[in-house]
């Protein structure tokens, strides 16, 4: 077996006297799909928050692709290649769907603010590429034609997929989906499962 892409060593998260996550050992192989299951309040989301450094784990270490990521700021974790969705959808509600995707691509765009002001050829090319890529992603998550809707005006299922699309826009090596099938009926759940396999096929990136 190759070296795992993600490894948590004795990762713990304590809030005062409450231990939400205790000495978690976890390793994830590249290209695999895993599920973290547990009853409500078991700490599933806290594990995600600790991996992405939204919360700083109180003990232990998190290794990702050979480097330690605990203690980094979340934006650097994202740059390292981890992206996530949220249990209760957290889109940028007041901008359009396609702009949500473009925000997700932030890391991979090179245009600067002065480039934007002077509308330099480099910026124009960069924006053009970003737009094309966003259109491709929009089609991939099945939202073609919805790009100009404000995110908050999309129906629930589409918001879920847009959120996944936004996470994919960062070109992650590891995608963390927090309860991706919450509120879905069995039929929709099956389709979501197929969709997740699709995502792996496309990105060859494992999903939790």
């Amino acid at each position: 077996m190759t070296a795992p892409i993600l490894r948590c060593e004795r990762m713990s998260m304590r809030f005062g006297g409450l231990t939400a996550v205790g000495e978690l050992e976890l390793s994830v192989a590249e290209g695999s799909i895993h599920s973290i299951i547990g009853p409500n309040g078991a700490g599933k989301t806290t594990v995600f928050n600790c991996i992405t450094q939204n919360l700083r784990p109180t003990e232990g270490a998190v290794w990702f692709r050979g480097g330690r990521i605990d203690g980094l700021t979340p934006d650097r974790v994202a740059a390292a290649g981890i992206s996530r969705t949220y249990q209760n959808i957290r889109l940028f509600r007041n901008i359009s769907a396609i702009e949500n995707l473009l925000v997700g691509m932030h890391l991979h765009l090179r245009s600067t603010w002065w480039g934007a002001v002077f509308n330099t050829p480099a910026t124009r090319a960069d924006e053009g590429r970003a737009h094309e890529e966003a259109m491709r992603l929009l089609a991939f998550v099945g939202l073609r034609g919805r790009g100009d809707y404000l995110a908050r005006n999309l129906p629930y299922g589409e918001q879920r997929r847009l959120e996944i699309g936004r996470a994919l826009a960062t070109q992650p090596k590891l995608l963390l989906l927090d309860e991706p099938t919450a509120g879905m009926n069995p039929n929709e759940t099956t389709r979501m499962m197929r969709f997740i396999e699709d995502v792996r096929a496309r990105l060859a990136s494992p999903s939790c």
Partner: protein
Amino acid sequence: MPHTALRTAIARGLMFGAGGVHLAAVGVLLMLHNRWIVVDTISLGQATLVSLGIAAGAVAVPRALVSDAPGRLVLGLVAGASTGVVMAILAVLVGWLHPQSIFIALSPDLLKMLTSDLGLGAGSAVLIGGGALAGLIGAGLRISPVGFRGTVLAGVVAVVVAGVFQELIQLMLQYEGPVGAIRDAFYDWDGLMPQGAVMVFVLAAIGYQLWIRFGARHRGTLDDRQLRRQRMMRAAVAVLVLAIMPVLAGAYIGQVLMLVGLYILMGLGLNLEVGLAGLLDLGFVAFFAVGAYTTALLTADSPHALLHLSFWLAMPASVLLAVAVGVVFGLPVLGVRGDYLAVATMGLGEIVRVIVLSDFAAPLLGGAQGVLQIPKPHLGGVLLGSPVQLFYLTLVASGVAAFVAWRLENSRQGRAWMALRDDEDVAQALGINLVRSKLMAYGLGAAFAGLAGSIFAVMLTSVYPSSFQLLISINVLALIIVGGMGSLPGVVLGSIALIGLPELLREFGEYRYLFYGAVLIVMMRWKPEGLWPSEVRRRELHAGDMAAALDEGADLLPAEPR
């Protein structure tokens, strides 16, 4: 007619009456009475009373309660009469009790105005009868078809504008020959003449009719590109009007527009911070002060001056220093969010003012006396001395600022700011560097304010700490809110409405903040998105393609596996 409907109508009428009493008691009513709309016919104060009655009649009962026309008319009349009764009671009380020693504004002059100089009995009757009539008109307008109502309103608004701003309009038309003849048809020395008012009304009504018949219908058939071209045309026309306005209207308008321009500059800056990045900043005036003081210290002929540079060198220096202060300001409050950020920045703004005022900094900054004798800028041998010339400088500066803001808004940085505004944590989890983005917003916002401050310094040729009150920050914030958060045209509109109009109606100065408050409350209640809300940018499709695409991919749950 149901009992509750009658009660509602009376209650609403009384409410508008209470509003009238308030206006009378704070002195606004009498002040408005001193300005004619139509000479010797109707004053602005009388028009206010009438419009109270009309408003009471118009909203007398909810449509759900009474929907038949006669019933609504009767209830409108009742509501208007109730408003009239309240004003009549006020008149009687003022007549009997002479309360001026306690309520300064409840004076004999007010009594004369309320009773139309007819004595208490007849005057009260006129108030009640007039109120009833106004209420009837209000209810009638409400149930009349939209086209008719719009036409009447357009006419009335045109007459009020033509009457209230008669001095300025006459100033613009102060030529002999055909222009003078037109002017003399509408105006005499004191203001708008009755026959002039009728003509204005008719012209505006015809104009409105033409617009809804041709302009409005035409609009629906435009495609996206034509609409965009239309918008560009409108913006160009607006800039052109602004540019020639001072030439036509003279120095006074020039001065007012110059002030509006400065606030547009500051508004554009704060709009980057608040409207795009969602950083509520109440210490914005600090950057304005830094810009003004930097220019003062670098150019003035005073003992405090550090250098005697030309304005054109001092201006970029002011902008750079403002940016530096913006970044320094931003650092300590980076981790502070939302409402707390507003309080923290307010504190920082005050710190700057207090430092400037302090004895400690007095040897450098001149303390309360400020820095005097700042020279006006030269441009290629021409002295930009008059307000009108400085107005053009401001116009160019605002134009540049608006262009920069517009480009940024549609850029990678602009999207990062909007993401930050909507959800800071998620933005960070997507790889956006919060520190850099926030400092960028502070720095650029500060740059615009510094530029405004720099021009402000040469406009006044002196700077004092008292010019940099918290109130300026609040004014700028208010104009953004009224104009529409995050909207560039909104900034312009907000500045004109909140800074320009009160300046033109000089005698309102004392009550300026009363109107501000009222405007803000009304806006928040009925139009929270602002006068000119920012639009959703279309990136994927143009309007026409939308329907087709929706048909094609109607139900979209996960794309079928390929």
